[in-house]
């Protein structure tokens, strides 16, 4: 059941569905898994009912390395909603995972100052526990 909005204190939480539960279950276990086509082996993110490359519906989650490069970023100064008001500034990074060209994941960049960010810099996944039930995949510079 969806709880009453408590947006004053919390940013929006992902609401997993049939298609995406495999992704979020992996993240809760600190494993980054991406939906992959069994027929053509193409990686699909965000999860889809049919492969973006070959339209096959034979798809399953497979773990990825959790490594990638920084495609671009922005630093949020103005709040996108009440749940972020006390967190600003927040850095959003577009990550290109190393498994496939143009396989993007949008997350926050943690443990880094904007001044150190560069296009193509190596980044790796880390996990942020937002609530006892919710874990978000986040990225940080490779340590």
């Amino acid at each position, binding site marked *: 059941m969806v709880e009453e909005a*408590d947006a004053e204190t919390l940013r929006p939480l992902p609401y997993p569905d049939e298609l995406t539960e495999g992704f979020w279950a992996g993240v809760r276990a600190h494993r980054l898994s991406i939906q992959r086509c069994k027929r053509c082996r193409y990686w699909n993110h965000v999860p889809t009912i049919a492969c973006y490359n070959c339209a096959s519906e034979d798809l399953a989650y497979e773990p990825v390395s959790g490594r990638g490069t920084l495609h671009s970023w922005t630093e949020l100064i103005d709040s996108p909603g009440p*749940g972020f008001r006390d967190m600003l500034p927040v850095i959003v990074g*577009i990550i290109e995972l190393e498994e496939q060209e143009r396989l993007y994941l949008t997350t926050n960049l943690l443990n880094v100052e904007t001044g150190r960010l560069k296009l193509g810099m190596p980044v790796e996944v880390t996990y942020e526990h*937002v609530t006892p039930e919710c874990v978000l995949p986040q990225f940080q510079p490779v340590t």
Partner: protein
Amino acid sequence: MWEFRDKVSVAGVGYSKLSRRPAETLATLTSDAVKGALADAGLTLADLDGIATSPSMPRYGGLRGAMEGIDVVTPWHLCDQLHVNEQINWTGSTNGMVTQSFIEAAMAIASGVCKHAVVYRALHVPEGRYINFDSRYAAGTDQFVAPFGFSMPPAWAAVIMRRYYELYGYSREDFARFIADNRANTCLNPNGYWREKPMVPQDYLDARMIADPMSILDCDIPVDGACALLLTSTERARDLRQPPALLSGFAASTYPHPTGTVMTLETLWEGCEQVARRLWECSGLGPKDIDNAHLYDGFSIFVPLWLEGLGILERGDGDLIGAARQSLADPDWFLKLRLGRGDEIRRCTYTNYCEALDQRHRPVTCKLWDRQELDEPGAALTDGGRRRLLAPGWVHRKTGRQEDL
């Protein structure tokens, strides 16, 4: 080339009042714009037999209303409101953008199902913040962006801008002139919301940041109001009040979005390039034929990307957009920069003096130099006795030597 090239025309344009929190409903504003377009063409409501729009409410997060006449105005609501239900033979209501409504209306005119079609865009901005993701949960594709705060269009544009800056070595300073120029153009537009608020490049650099490097002055301002275009056949349009604007071609993109993020610099370029190929193919024109472009500038970075995707500029040359006024103010500015004399550049002050002359079809000169050194040998003068074409020659301040240009 399109079989109906130049056979459909825009014969009238109408605007409602455009403002932030009007007392009038969206239905009233839409009706004003539609009647305005008909009157501009020299037509009356009795001539109208086609209506098209893309009813939508631009809001990101929070509640989106769908109340007819308040939040949106569909073609059927407009029929009721204007009491034209019986005479309207054709209605179009498209998803996506109003561009598709325009294309459909052009087809309806070309195919003869209606004779005078109005295409309008009507937008209502509800009370409260325009961008405000206040739900506790993010479902659907939102679940992969909203938990990270990536639920606002300025942030989507910001990652495009950031990548563009990093790839080509730009910063916001390089685009300040373009933004100020854009505002100067607004000041000449009787319908421009900011027409009485000129700005200078420094205002842009001082602007409040939204999603770095996107500031508030990189974003358009959401307003309530409507704009309407009256389409008819070119043949009929020639007998109407205004000279017709001929539709030579059109194109829309079906380029795939990236997944995993909202948009990328590369897919925007590629999508623009697809539109361009279709546009040139349809119209028989090419980038060299274009001398007046009205490009989507809801977020400033999209203007250079459109110019680049259309083939009017090379990729990465976006900083040239704001160069026109500055090169009029000081034709030697590149030379001065190259010689390390940047402090001697005569900087454009954005008074719109040159633009005003151009609007009046008078020789364009610059206020900063057109009354200086009129007796310089060889100086060309306008019939009004001002310098024309070129500023006084640059005398090197230290050597007293005229630079050989």
